[in-house]
Every structure is written in structure tokens, then in C-alpha cells.
């Protein structure tokens, strides 16, 4: 039964464990994400969300376990950020996805430039495509921002938009958003959520990590709750109200669920 499902999953993690020395960061993580599913990954600070993201995006390998992306098994010995990109995993970090002082068009293509022989960049082509992504994929319109603008001129929401647009352009199967709305104003949060809706519309999958339950509830199809390195609950959106989810999370924050997890 499992094997039949593999093909339909954008992501499957099997018994992923991660130790930093003697410290357990992740224990026995089994996680599936469907091909066009948005999974909200929630948990308090230190729950292991960031560690999970870093394994997924190729920053470091797990201590043990298996990872399948669109049914393809990942070889951790050669897995890195570039490999993650070729597998179709794109990660948008809260504050370190874009080079602040660099032009927008550079930010779209850095790491996988369109080049002439010898590695010289085809600037004209990169700008053309960047322009297209900005207008078609993320829908920036006449806000005084062009592909030649520096990232530092963009608002927090727009930056996330650029990072998400970049991920969509490179045909990511799975886009991981790591706390994309931290430190954003409400209006900007709204923009980011719109971008996430676009991911859903384009038929791709997404892991949305946040500890703002309200955002997650609005956007996700399913919630996966982590606590101290373990997945402690999986809940479909239709099975729970925002209020109940909030109370559920509070219970963990107060340690009332300890008995069940240990």
C-alpha cells in the first residue's frame, strides 16, 4: 500500500533521525506531503522544524532515515542545496533567501545562472525572464519596482513574493516556506498568503512552517504538529476549528501533553 502512494507524494520522509552529538534534534520523523497539498508544520521554538527544513533542503544530512522526493530516493552522500534544487525542492527562508544589496534579476538566477560558455552571464535573457516572473507569476504591478531594483527597496512581503516566484519559476515540486510571515505587518502577511495560494493553484506542493496558527490555518490543507523533535499529531483541516487547534497548541506549550509524547 505504501509503495502505491509513493508516486502520489511530493515528499516522503521515513524514520528520519538527527543527532547533534548526544542531543536529539529529530526523532523518528515520518512525513508525507501530497502532490498538490499544503501542509502546515507547526510547533514551538525548538520543536525541530528548522532542522527538518535543513535536511530537506540539503543544508545537512540526517543521522539516519530515508527521503523520497516525487518517488525518487535521495542519496544523502551527494545531497546538497543544488541537488535539492534538481530534485525539485525549493526553500524560502524568513530572511536569508535574497541578497539585499543585489539587483532583483540577479536574485532570481543566482546559483543557476543562464550563461554563455565560460560562465559569463546572459544578462539580457535573465532580465527578460525575471521581468516575466515578476509580472506573470507573482503579479507585481507598477509599484515602482523593476528587475533592476535592489532587494533592499522591497517590503518584507514583496521579498517573500520574489523568493516564492523564483521557486515557482524553477518548477519546484515542493516549496518549503520557513516562517515566511515573521516580522511582517498584517497587510504584508496577506500578500504572502496570496503567493502561497498561487502555489496551490499551480498544482505544486508546499510545506508552510510557522508558529502563527492563524496564518497556517488559513492556508494549509493539513496540519502536522511537532514538539521536541517528534511529530505529535496530524490533523486534517476539516477535522478541527481554528479555536480548537489553538487550544491544542497551547496544551503543548504548557506541557500538558507530556504524558502522551514520552
Amino acid at each position, binding site marked *: 500500500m505504501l509503495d502505491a502512494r509513493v508516486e502520489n507524494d511530493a515528499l516522503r520522509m521515513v524514520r528520519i533521525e538527527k543527532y547533534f552529538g548526544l542531543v536529539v534534534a529529530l526523532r523518528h520523523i515520518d512525513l508525507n506531503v501530497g502532490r498538490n497539498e499544503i501542509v502546515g508544520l507547526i510547533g514551538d521554538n525548538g520543536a525541530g522544524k528548522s532542522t527538518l527544513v535543513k535536511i530537506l*533542503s540539503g543544508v545537512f544530512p540526517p543521522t539516519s532515515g530515508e527521503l523520497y522526493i516525487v518517488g525518487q530516493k535521495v542519496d544523502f552522500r551527494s545531497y546538497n542545496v543544488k541537488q535539492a*534544487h534538481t530534485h525539485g525542492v525549493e526553500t524560502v*527562508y524568513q530572511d536569508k533567501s535574497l541578497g539585499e*544589496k543585489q539587483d532583483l534579476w540577479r536574485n532570481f538566477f*543566482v*546559483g543557476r*545562472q543562464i550563461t554563455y560558455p565560460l560562465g*559569463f552571464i546572459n544578462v539580457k535573457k535573465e532580465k527578460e525572464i525575471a521581468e516575466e516572473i515578476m509580472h506573470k507569476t507573482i503579479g507585481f504591478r507598477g509599484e515602482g519596482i523593476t528587475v533592476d531594483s535592489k532587494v533592499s527597496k522591497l517590503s518584507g512581503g514583496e521579498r517573500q513574493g520574489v523568493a516564492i516566484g523564483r521557486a515557482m519559476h524553477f518548477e519546484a515540486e515542493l516549496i518549503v516556506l520557513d516562517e515566511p510571515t515573521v516580522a511582517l505587518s498584517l497587510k504584508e502577511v496577506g500578500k504572502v498568503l496570496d503567493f502561497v495560494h498561487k502555489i496551490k493553484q499551480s498544482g505544486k506542493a508546499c510545506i508552510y512552517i510557522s508558529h502563527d496558527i492563524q496564518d497556517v490555518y488559513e492556508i494549509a490543507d493539513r496540519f502536522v504538529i511537532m514538539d521536541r523533535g517528534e511529530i505529535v499529531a496530524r490533523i486534517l483541516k476539516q477535522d478541527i476549528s481554528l479555536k480548537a487547534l489553538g487550544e491544542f497548541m497551547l496544551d503543548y506549550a504548557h506541557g500538558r501533553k507530556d504524558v502522551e509524547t514520552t
Partner: protein
Amino acid sequence: MKRERSILLVLRKLEGLPIALVLTTLYVAFAITAPNVFTGYRIYMSFLQTVPPMLVLALGLTFVITAGEIDLSFSAVVAFSGFIFAWFFKTFDASWAAWVGILLALASGALVGYINGLLVAKIGVPSIMATLAAQFFWSGLTVLLAGGLSWNIKGIQDDIIHAIFTGRLFGVVPAQAFWALGLAIFLWFVLNRHRFGEAIMFLGDNPNVARVVGIDVEKTKIQLFTMMGILAGFSALLLTIEMNTFWTTQGQGYLLLALAAVFIGGTSIAGGEGSIVGTFFGAYIIGSLEAGVVATGIGGYWTSLVSGLVMGASVVLNILLGEGRFLRLSKRIQSWGLVARSKSTGRSLSQDNHGS
């Protein structure tokens, strides 16, 4: 108004414009105060001979500083690589000796840079410390190897190498000026139009971003310092071949000058942005000051003071005309105009201006 704005934008986009203005102003000032020196071509030909070794160093340093790092060892490389060349040329007195000497000089520069890169990237030594130690080590080693002596390599004058690197085109223009110019153009393309240059900029901007967009941070740093070493080796060649002599302290005077050239050219110490064009003009400003001040006749004691003044003014100008500020300044001037007009019509046009 719209057309004005677009002209301003174009001007602002011209790389190194403020610093080119400073250089022009400087030459005009010198031409006025020392007309018999600065209206002839000879003084400029002498700049084209003395500036290139320092310019080559400053070009490499522009990359290093853009990457958010620093290199203080290049002046020692100028001595070390120069020694390697002189030693080889003298020891093997054959027709091919100069060619192999050149390769060895560049390779020795690369070696020093590579070791710097390893220390910085693999072990995590701050580059200021790693390269400061390297500066002492390699200049110390050079003194030891050379026995503390200068080496005369007069024989190089009859070698084709001498003509290629430091000959006089049309009998007057020093060839090293073309080498440095060609290198500047090439390195402009590397920084602004090549994958490597983009990696350097992102690295200096934010190493964490560089890492998550898939740049191999360690490899890029090692390549960066190696490149700096090779350029310092090339600078050593231009200097040694021109002078027909190797001396143990050669290059020492370039350390602060090259740094100054990079900074007045508008490259930010914070990293992430660098200007090759700025460095090019910056190097010529720095390299012209001493001779210029002396030529004006106010006396050698003034050189340092005037140099400091010009450097300070260039940096201030660069910041004032830099990205954003320039536009804000011109906006503010326009809004003043609007306020003045709105007062006369009784309506606040300036508010509309703020909204847009």
C-alpha cells in the same frame, strides 16, 4: 521634470562617475597650479608607468573587499614573487628563463593566496588575521631567501619579456598601462557578468544567503584569495621587470595605497558591492597625488596632507552621490520647489508628491 529625472538616473547609473570627476578636477587643479608640468604629456606617461602595479593590486583587492574579506598579504607577495622571478632569471641564464620565471612568479603568488584561502575558508581564521600573519611570514621569508639584498637583473632589458610587459608603445606609452587597463576591463566582466563575480557579491552581501542559494562558500573564498595572489604576482612582475631590480621591501608602500584606491573608488567596506571602474580611477588619483603636489611647488611636506584631503573628499562625494541619496536629494529639491509654488497657489502640492 520627468526628463530631468531620467538624466539623473542615467548619471547615477554610470559606474565610478563621482570618482572620475574627482580625478578630472585633480588634474585640472594641477594643470592650473603647475602648468609647466601638467600641460605636457611626460607627467602622464610617468603615471602610466608608476600606477599599474598598484592598480593591479587594487583590482584584486576590489574583489576581496566586495566579498566582505580583506587581504593584507599582497604587498609581501609583490616582494616574494618578485624575488622568485629575479632568482630564477639570474640562476638559469637562458633564453627561456624569463618565461619560466614569470610562470613561477604567478604560481608563487597563487600558492600564497591559496594558503590564505585555506586558512580563511577551511579553518575559519578571520581574513584580517590570516593575511596579516601571511604578510609578515612571506616578507620575512623573502628577506631570508634573498639574504637581505637587492638583486640586479639588468639582463632582462635585452629580453623580449621586457618589451612585452614594460616596453614603450610608440616610444612613449608604457606597455604596463595597457596590461593594467586590459586586466581592469576583463575583471569588470568577471565581477559584473560572471558566475564567480556574482558569487563574490552574494558572499559579501550575506554568507547565509549565499549558502542557501547554492553557492559553494568555501570554494569561492579559496578561489578569491588565490586570484588575489596571482594578481599580486603579476603586479610584482610589472614592477620588477620595469625596475630591472628586485629589492626586499618592494611592494610595501602599496599596502595602504591600494586599500585607499579601492575605498575612494566606492567599494563598500561592508561588502556586497564593488566598483572596478571606481578602483581604476581611484588608483590613478592615489598614484598622481604625490607627484602632483610636489610639482605644484608647495613642497614635499604637503603631500600627505593633500592626499588625506583628496581621499576624504572622494569618499564623501561617493556617499553623497551614492545610490538612493542622490535620488532623495533631487526629490527633496523638487519638493522644495513644489512647496514654494503651492504656497503661492494656496494648495499643498507637496502632499501629492509624498503620496506618489
